[in-house]
């Protein structure tokens, strides 16, 4: 899932300071699960901003709401009135959610309440770790199911580098060395022959390096007729 962190309170307060009527919109998907922008976090943020305002004798109007998935237009449509009726939307979704609202209502200001960090997984309560960077060319069937692009600080294709000590990464001694883990996994699976092979220079053109990616599935697209029908039902 997409893992995000709430921006520091002072940064948010400063960002929203010039505006009067602020709608804070959370999301029930990834950011709710990673405890950054779900219903609870939206409520907490609003009360913190209100407390701050009370201390400073400042008045702003806040309204909080949460949509199912902020990155999908259908869910934003449902709260269109709130978006259009506010001076500022503070999105508590990942940047995808914030940009979806912004792209739908280009005249409205939509500011990010979160810093979107990574594709990660919850390891335990309160701990999320990065496991994919969306390179567009998955190789984990050859690396014991462990992604070296995301989990190695140097995204090495032929690791581990000389800084791997006790199975930990030299960049952060709290973090496992990806290639040490790959070695152990392949050994366990009796597939060490895979790590003996050289991985040639990676093709990064499928990643962001190849330019902004837009995936089109012709077979999934709606015909103009179907599109019209769908609009009619809304």
């Amino acid at each position, binding site marked *: 899932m997409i893992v995000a962190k709430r921006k520091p309170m002072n940064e948010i307060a400063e960002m929203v300071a010039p505006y009067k009527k602020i709608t804070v919109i959370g999301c029930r998907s990834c950011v709710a699960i990673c405890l950054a922008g779900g219903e609870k976090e939206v409520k907490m943020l609003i009360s913190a901003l209100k407390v701050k305002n009370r201390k400073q004798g400042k008045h702003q109007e806040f309204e909080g709401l949460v949509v199912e998935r902020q990155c999908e237009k259908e869910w934003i449509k449902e709260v269109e009135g709130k978006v259009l009726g506010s001076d500022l939307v503070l999105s508590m979704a990942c940047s995808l959610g914030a940009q979806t609202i912004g792209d739908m209502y280009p005249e409205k200001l939509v500011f990010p309440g979160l810093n979107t960090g990574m594709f990660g997984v919850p390891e335990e309560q309160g701990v999320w770790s990065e496991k994919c960077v969306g390179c567009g060319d998955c190789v984990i069937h050859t690396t014991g199911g462990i992604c070296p692009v995301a989990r190695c600080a*140097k995204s090495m294709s032929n690791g581990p580098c000389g800084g791997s000590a006790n199975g930990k990464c030299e960049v952060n001694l709290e973090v496992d060395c990806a290639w040490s883990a790959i070695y152990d996994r392949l050994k366990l699976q009796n597939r060490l022959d895979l790590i003996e092979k050289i991985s040639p*220079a990676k093709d990064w053109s499928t990643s962001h390096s190849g330019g902004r990616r837009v995936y089109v599935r012709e077979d999934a697209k709606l015909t103009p007729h179907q599109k019209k029908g769908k609009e009619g039902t809304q």
Partner: protein
Amino acid sequence: MKAGSNLEKVFEAGKFAVTAEIGPPQSANPEPLIHHAKMLKGHADAFNLTDNQTAVVRLSSIASAVVIMREGIEPVIQMTCRDRNRIALQSDLLGAGALGVKNVLCLTGDHQTFGNEKNAKSVFDFDSISELQTFNALRTEGKQVGGEIIKDPPKVYLGCAENPFATPYEFRAMRLAKKATAGADFCQTQAIFDMDMFEKWMDEVRARGVDKRVHILAGVIPMKSAGAARYMKNKVPGMIVPNDIVDRMKNAKDQKEEGIKLCIEQIEHLKTVKGVHGVHIMPVAWEEMVPRIVKEAGLLPRPTFA
């Protein structure tokens, strides 16, 4: 001969090679390089110029190479994958070739979080092995990694590094074999303090026949103090300094002298390890000690070729 460098000739002649590192300055002043080149001339077969080592911005390794070549000594330029993508790496290899640089050490590079530009965007388009593979294809077939065939490819002798003291230990000889397959002609090891562990690694290297495919330069660091020994032991990931060495440094009356003595003893021993074809001295800002170490380790005079 692949490049006809002095270092290549020393290896091909079956002589025990000596290389030493020169750290380029954190300035645009070439004088420290010229000073070290004059002082070290004749004491090693080639001199390594680090490429922004530990991610600290320094005078570039290729420019440094040109400075020391003017003083009549041979450079080994280090080229890391941290700061340059395949376009820049291949371009710089052509440039280095045009300037007469004949030895290139391929490294993935220290991560930028260790250096003085921690906010940098890392590149790591390649790692050391894909860099070696690319440079090897470029020098032998004139073929770029993207497939384009070029005229007048660079003639370079390719090196790599390997660390017998990084985990997983049992993979380290295999990893050197990968580098040999990718095109490495020689290898510099991480500084050796745990001789038993190094010899165990060399056993595996020989068992795989890798010592026959790549010339191994055993890395040594002369230590200035017990503090330096402790620092490397505790703070540098992938370095192993046994307690008896730390104690020996700590108990010495003259720690600097002890560091030099220890380094000379290590070299004397390394000369006897089968498959080790030379030493690589990393003086870490103590370049002035290199002539003495080389002399007292019985490595003078250095071979010359007509």
